[in-house]
């Protein structure tokens, strides 16, 4: 982050916006909940400076995007003054630096404009001026997009913390307001979508791992259903190793999430603990292992070529985000209490196990794809497999030196195809066993039934069944 000395600032307009871009990205490395109110305070300054710069630049088309953002931001600031939330206090240093850099750039552009001949917007402008203006405008909107996202992610954490406090029937700290923080999050989210649309962000929600607070009850079920349909559709198209690998990886993640959420449900007495511990869990572990083996055998044959069907990628992003917002906190798993606070554990367990019910069918379809003569891998990947000893010498027909040199797609060497087919047979066997172990039909208890005491050391894991706390509105000292 550059601390600008305004009087001696020699940076050009382009450098100033670039500096704002880098600083806005730095802000996103950290989205601590304590930053939320500071960022909301500084947000208006960022938009004001950005809008000033935008309007100072040549614009033949009169694009209204920044005007819309300015209007939304002004409205939010009026609300803040009226409600005195977030109130007086420090701003966010990153966002203040962004606002300063953009403000300085606006001054520079305006000064050049004042020094030259009066601008006739209807007159044709030199092409280089238009190109520069277009580049600056893109850079500027990207900054607004990143800043809006950083304010939004900080607010997400802040809102989540306030919700937790209210759900525990505790009072909020003086100056905190759940409803106002949530409203601000929604309004800044609108700006993020508008700016994101301008810069052409194609997967604005799933790609950024958007965490929705509270977790939307139907999101997981919807994402899993979409994934199942799309995986089958994609596999019905041209067979590529990248698509197959993506499907295998996501199936493994679904299996892993079923284990995590299912364990929470069992330990809370919502499903049969003994059944989960002795049958379901080992079955899910085996299933993860065999999917992992398919991925490990397939991955070297792709090297870095991961281009997949865009529809499959969109569905994968969504299911990944829907799972992660339930199962993870940062890099690690969320605590059981967190999982319970986020989602209807019983409903999520049922959704995940329903999704696993199609594993056998999907593994059969993947097996058909791998057996398809048109199924290809990258020549360098196939060569690496040969070099590593994965394919017996003399059996890698169909791969020439020219194929390797140009890294062409080639039919998968037959021995490698045999290895993958064997992996998939194993997936089918394990999936059938998991199904018979009840892994696709969790034995659900009535929510308030006390769990049956399992034998031996599992007694320590027992917990009384809990009911999920009301999601919203919370109880407490809401101002």
């Amino acid at each position, binding site marked *: 982050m550059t601390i600008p000395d305004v009087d001696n600032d020699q940076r050009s307009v382009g450098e100033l*916006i*670039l500096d704002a871009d880098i600083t806005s*990205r730095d802000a*996103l*490395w*950290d*989205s601590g909940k304590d930053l939320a109110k500071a960022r909301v305070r500084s947000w208006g300054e960022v938009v004001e400076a950005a809008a000033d710069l935008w309007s100072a630049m040549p614009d033949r088309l009169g694009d209204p995007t920044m005007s819309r953002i300015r209007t939304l931001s002004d409205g939010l600031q009026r609300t803040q003054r009226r409600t005195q939330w977030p109130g007086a206090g420090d701003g966010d240093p990153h966002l203040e630096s962004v606002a300063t850099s953009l403000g300085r750039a606006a001054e520079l552009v305006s000064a050049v404009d004042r020094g030259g001949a009066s601008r006739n917007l209807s007159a044709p402008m030199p092409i280089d001026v238009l190109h520069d203006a*277009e*580049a600056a405008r*893109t*850079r500027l909107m*990207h900054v607004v*997009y*990143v800043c809006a*996202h950083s304010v939004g*992610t900080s607010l997400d954490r802040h809102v989540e913390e306030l919700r937790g406090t209210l759900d525990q029937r505790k009072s909020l700290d003086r100056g905190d307001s759940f409803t106002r923080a949530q409203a601000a999050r929604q309004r800044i989210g609108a700006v993020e979508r508008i700016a*994101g649309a301008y*810069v*052409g*962000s*194609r*997967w*604005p929600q799933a*790609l*950024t*791992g958007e965490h929705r607070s509270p977790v939307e009850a139907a999101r997981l079920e919807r994402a899993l259903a979409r994934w199942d349909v799309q995986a089958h559709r994609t596999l019905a198209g041209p067979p590529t190793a*990248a698509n197959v690998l*993506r499907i295998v*990886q*996501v199936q*493994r*993640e679904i299996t*892993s999430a079923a284990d995590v959420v299912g364990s929470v449900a069992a330990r809370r007495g919502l499903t049969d603990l003994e059944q989960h511990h002795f049958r379901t869990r080992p079955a899910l572990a085996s299933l*993860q292992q065999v999917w*992992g083996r398919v*991925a*490990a055998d397939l*991955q070297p044959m792709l090297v*870095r*070529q*991961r*281009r*997949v069907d865009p529809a499959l*990628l969109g569905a*994968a*992003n969504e299911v*990944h985000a829907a*799972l*992660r917002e339930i*199962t*993870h906190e*940062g*890099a*690690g*798993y969320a605590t059981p209490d967190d999982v319970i606070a986020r989602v209807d554990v019983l409903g999520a367990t049922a959704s995940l196990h329903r999704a696993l019910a199609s594993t056998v069918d999907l593994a059969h379809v993947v097996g058909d794809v791998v057996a398809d003569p048109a199924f290809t891998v*990258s020549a360098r*990947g196939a060569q690496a497999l040969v070099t590593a000893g994965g394919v017996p010498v003399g059996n890698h027909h169909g791969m020439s030196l020219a194929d390797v040199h*140009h*890294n*062409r797609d080639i039919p998968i060497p037959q021995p490698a195809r045999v290895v993958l087919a064997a992996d998939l047979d194993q997936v089918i066997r394990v999936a059938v066993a998991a199904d018979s172990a009840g892994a696709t039909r969790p034995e659900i208890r009535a929510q308030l039934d006390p769990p049956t005491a399992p034998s031996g050391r599992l007694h320590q894991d027992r917990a009384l069944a809990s009911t999920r706390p009301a999601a919203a509105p919370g109880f407490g000292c809401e101002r």
Partner: protein
Amino acid sequence: MIGQFTTQPAIESWREAIALLVEAATRGFTEAEANPALYSTALWADLLASSAIDLLPANQDHLLDGVVLDRSYEDLDMVGLIRAAETTTRRHPIEQFPVGASGVIVGLLDLVRESRP
């Protein structure tokens, strides 16, 4: 911002960022054998790599396998490689990348933040 890369160095940096993400995912899948919670983060890195590849010209995927990563990356773990990928995207202003790059970069920044131990 237009639908293609505007400079050769920009496309090369983008490819390098993809190579780093793929490497991060590969190491992450390995690290997940000891710590299964990391699997999700590794998959996220791989999904972002696919999203970034989607912005490359369709007929140049094979060039990705020719990217040689600096030896200084060899000792990095998954998190270090993800950070390196993000840093690589900072070499060029956003308008030198094609439409859609902003979303990938913001996704990458989220991944950096969420992958911290």
